[in-house]
Every structure is written in structure tokens, then in C-alpha cells.
């Protein structure tokens, strides 16, 4: 049974560029949440998607956007990259009522230079 799959595992981008990160949820899960973990910090909630809609959003600017597809997979897009966007981006999948079955992927390490 595959868990949460994220791609790519590592990525290097230049300031001002745009990036797309991808996540496939665990089998049976239909809700996807994205978190940003900066160095030395705990994961910070970005937003959650359910039924292809953004259900709630954390304190992140509009440069961060997402999408959920009919097969429940999800993308995180970040525009106009800043050096401060360098972080580990974690995807977590769950059932709609969410946190009991929360399962994290291994993350995408984004470096902005």
C-alpha cells in the first residue's frame, strides 16, 4: 500500500521563478494538506484541498496556490520565488475529517538561489 508520494524530492530554483510541487495521497484518502518546514522550524500549514477546492488557508501570501485533481492528487505552485521560500514542503493526506489519519510524504526540498 503506497503512502503519500511527493515529487520531485529536491529542486533548485532562481529567485523570481515559479515552481510546481506534486503530491499523490495515500490510497483511500481524499484530502490533501500542504505544509512548509523552514530550517529549524516546525511545519507550518499552507492550505488544504478537498473535493478539488481549497478548504482553508494558513498565513501564506497569494504567491502560494494549489490545485486538486479528480484523482485526489494535488499540486502546490509558488510564483515569484523568494530566498525565504527555501524550505522542505510536506504534503499530508487524510480523510475529510482529517487529522486522525494524517499521513505525511517525505517532502520536497526546495532551494531558491
Amino acid at each position, binding site marked *: 500500500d503506497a503512502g*503519500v508520494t511527493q515529487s520531485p524530492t529536491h529542486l533548485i530554483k532562481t529567485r523570481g521563478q515559479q515552481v510546481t510541487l506534486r503530491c499523490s495521497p495515500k490510497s483511500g484518502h481524499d484530502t490533501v*494538506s500542504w*505544509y512548509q518546514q523552514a530550517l*529549524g*522550524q*516546525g*511545519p*507550518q*500549514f499552507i492550505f*488544504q484541498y*478537498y473535493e478539488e477546492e481549497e*478548504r*482553508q488557508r*494558513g498565513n501564506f501570501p497569494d504567491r502560494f496556490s494549489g490545485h486538486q485533481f479528480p484523482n485526489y492528487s494535488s499540486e502546490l505552485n509558488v510564483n515569484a520565488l523568494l530566498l525565504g521560500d527555501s524550505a522542505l514542503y*510536506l504534503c*499530508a493526506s487524510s480523510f*475529510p*475529517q*482529517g*487529522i*486522525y489519519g*494524517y*499521513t*505525511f*510524504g*517525505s*517532502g520536497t526540498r526546495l532551494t531558491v538561489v
Partner: protein
Amino acid sequence: DQQVKQNSPSLSVQEGRISILNCDYTNSMFDYFLWYKKYPAEGPTFLISISSIKDKNEDGRFTVFLNKSAKHLSLHIVPSQPGDSAVYFCAASAIGTNTGFQKLVFGTGTRLLVSP
């Protein structure tokens, strides 16, 4: 505003001894608490949780204690093993808000090193 705090960045313990990891929170709306373990290059893995209606939950070598009046919880690992060496995150959520949605608010983590 750091709503969940883990004030000890690191902890070193000898194999076989008890490891105690601490966590404090400020938001009184939090009613469900979780501990996650994270190895390098892996995502956080769920370890144990506790609801605010309880003050203790035990699962094998892991026990979580909750002191609601002090807004404090702790994770006890007994006995500690070298394989327990990892970063431990405390997380909290407000399930009772009935929004049909819950997010996790994480602390900054404590790096546990268990030496043989």
C-alpha cells in the same frame, strides 16, 4: 505567535533510560494533541496522541501526559533505544471547533539522541 512551543532543541539520553520531551501551548481552543517523529529525509510519522478529555495515554514504550491547567504536555519514552534518535514534534489541533476541518499547529521540534 508561536502557539505550540518546544523549548528544548535537543536532548541526550543513554539507552535504557527514560526520555522526557516537553511541549507547551497557549491556545485554549486546542483539544487534541499529537506527537510525531521525524527521521532525516523522511516525513513526520505519527507516534501517539491524546484528547483533552484525558490526562494520559499510553502505547507501549510511549506515554503522553497532558496538564490542561498548565497548558503543558510531555512525551515519555521508556526504555529509550538508539533507534528512537530522531526529531520529535509536538502538534495541536482544535477539533471541537466543528469546522469540518482540522489543521495541525506544530512546535519547533526536539532532537533526541539516544546513545548506546
